[in-house]
């Protein structure tokens, strides 16, 4: 049994690595097509003598044939040398790295809340199918799911920050604040509330829908009647027998969505000026700061590939019916 499982894991990991390689190739090819002279773009607007530019081109290996350039690119990428941002002239990796925590905090917490609230909503909606509870939960979440997430953010911002003044209008800390420690954390949370609320509302619909339909499928099963016949209370039947079976697709969804965490809030971060990867992407688009976009795309793709792998493995571990052969 163990051996079969080990082989399965290996197969899936290799598959993911292959996909990652595809992404790297795609990245390289795409940006090579667009940007034929990165050096010129990097130093656009600066007065650099032509010979110096030539030296830089040689340094970056741009006079080499494409194949060599690709090898060079792969090597650099693995060393996390992702180039220099056109806009800030700083290394791309440094720019990206400094912004990861903000996005992780925002989208991570939103993902957890939307999963929790959405799943519970879906369980209630399914268990009380076709009652007003079901209809209101289903309609409500469909409504939120159908609007652009950043537009919801705009409305919440105007209503609660501009008009009511309960929350700040953007950023992660009050400008000019010299607070530290707990006070700083509270300030950050205060700033995070509205964008987090926006993301939670926008994405809980997915969980509600999937949980509801999964539970409805399970509710038709005989083993629930058997559980009732054994003398279990309704709530125990639901929680011990129905929900564990219904949660399998939800767990997969959750794991997959974690992969989208890093890229999930591009427009919302822009609306709230939240200094994370999303805002960095929005700013990079304006350039266009191609090295940044390239680096961000690579990071986003890697996260998704990684978490898809986790989701796949988690599902095969949780569901005893999955074959290990």
């Amino acid at each position, binding site marked *: 049994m163990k051996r079969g499982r080990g082989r399965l894991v290996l197969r899936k990991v290799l598959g993911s690595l292959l996909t990652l390689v595809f992404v790297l190739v795609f990245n390289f090819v795409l940006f090579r097509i*667009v940007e034929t002279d990165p050096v010129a773009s990097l130093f656009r607007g600066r007065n650099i003598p032509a010979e110096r530019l030539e030296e830089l081109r040689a340094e970056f290996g741009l006079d080499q044939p494409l194949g060599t350039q690709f090898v060079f690119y792969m090597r650099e990428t693995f060393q996390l040398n992702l180039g220099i941002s056109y806009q800030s002239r700083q290394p791309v990796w440094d720019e990206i790295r400094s912004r990861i925590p903000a996005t992780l905090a925002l989208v991570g917490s939103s993902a957890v809340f939307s999963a929790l609230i959405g799943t519970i909503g879906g369980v209630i909606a399914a268990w009380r199918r076709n009652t007003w509870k079901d209809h209101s939960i289903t309609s409500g979440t469909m409504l939120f799911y159908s609007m*652009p997430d950043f537009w919801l953010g705009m409305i919440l911002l105007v209503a609660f920050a501009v008009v009511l003044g309960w929350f700040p209008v953007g950023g992660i800390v009050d400008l000019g604040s010299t607070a530290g420690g707990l006070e700083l954390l509270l300030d950050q949370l205060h700033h995070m509330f509205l964008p987090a609320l926006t993301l939670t509302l926008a994405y809980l619909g997915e969980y509600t829908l999937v949980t509801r339909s999964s539970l409805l499928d399970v509710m038709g099963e005989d083993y629930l009647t058997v559980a009732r016949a054994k003398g279990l209370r309704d709530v125990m039947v639901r929680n011990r027998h129905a929900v564990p079976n219904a949660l399998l697709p939800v767990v997969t969804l959750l794991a997959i969505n974690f992969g989208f965490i890093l890229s999930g809030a*591009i427009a919302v971060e*822009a609306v709230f000026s939240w200094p994370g990867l999303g805002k960095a992407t929005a700013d990079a*688009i*304006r350039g266009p700061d191609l090295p940044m976009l390239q680096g961000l795309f690579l990071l986003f793709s890697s996260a998704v590939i990684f978490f898809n792998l986790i989701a796949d493995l988690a599902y095969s571990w949780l569901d005893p019916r999955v074959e290990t052969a």
Partner: protein
Amino acid sequence: MSLAMQRRRATAARVGKQFRDSRSGMIGLGILAVFVVMALAAPLLADANQLNPVFARNAGNPQWATPGEFGPLGTDHIRRSVWAQFVWGSRVSLFVGLAATVLTILIGSVIGIVSGFFGRRTDAVLMRLTEWFLVIPFLPLAIVLASVLGRSVWNIIFVIGITSWPSTARLVRAQVLTVKQRLFVDRAKSLGAGGPHIVARHILPNVSGLILANATLAVPVSILTETTLAFLGLGDPASASWGKTLEEAFANGAMIRNAWWYFVPAGLGILAVVLAFTLVGRTLEEIANPRLGGDR
């Protein structure tokens, strides 16, 4: 009338009746009808000149006028009528949404049919490709492509189409495989029928119901993607979609001024249209796949 035609007529009638019975489906259809009419009748509903800032200035429009002060929906930072933007914006949003979806469905269906029909090597290769597209985060890919290709309506349509086809391809392929297993394909082959004939006569009619449902559900994704891309600045600068309206509202301080009339209508428009397509699409899905019905 041939037997096949008669059957098709009967199926259409049955589908029509089932659709009319669905309350949510009819509501969705109603909302859609309103917006399609609005888009088509745009010249009658709003003066296109009001979209031109020079005209607006010369006409003496106030800046940032509330709906009470000017027109049905007030004006923006460069004195243009928001109502005009709303009405004319519906055209672009609907057009891009529909066109991108058509492209998505075309690519997805072709790949799905080819993959399912030819099987083996072709199938394996195409499925790998599909998997790859599914794994890549959708929005970043669209952003990257749009940045690289430039900001025009057709590029946006292309970008959305080319990033959304995988789910259609998978669906179509599964259907084709099911149909392939049915007897009459073998019978047709034994009667000497060739590949394209089999595809046209047998596979397509069985798959088309599901494709239609899938297409209708894909339009919301296209519209929302266009909106987001436009908001991020990747939209066509010349055309004014609802997403573009939101981008301009945001970029020019509509929020700080609480100029809600500038950004609320466009968002409501998107919400309504997306909801409508979702309702219609889910109804069609239930009809095409009766197993899903009754629980929704």
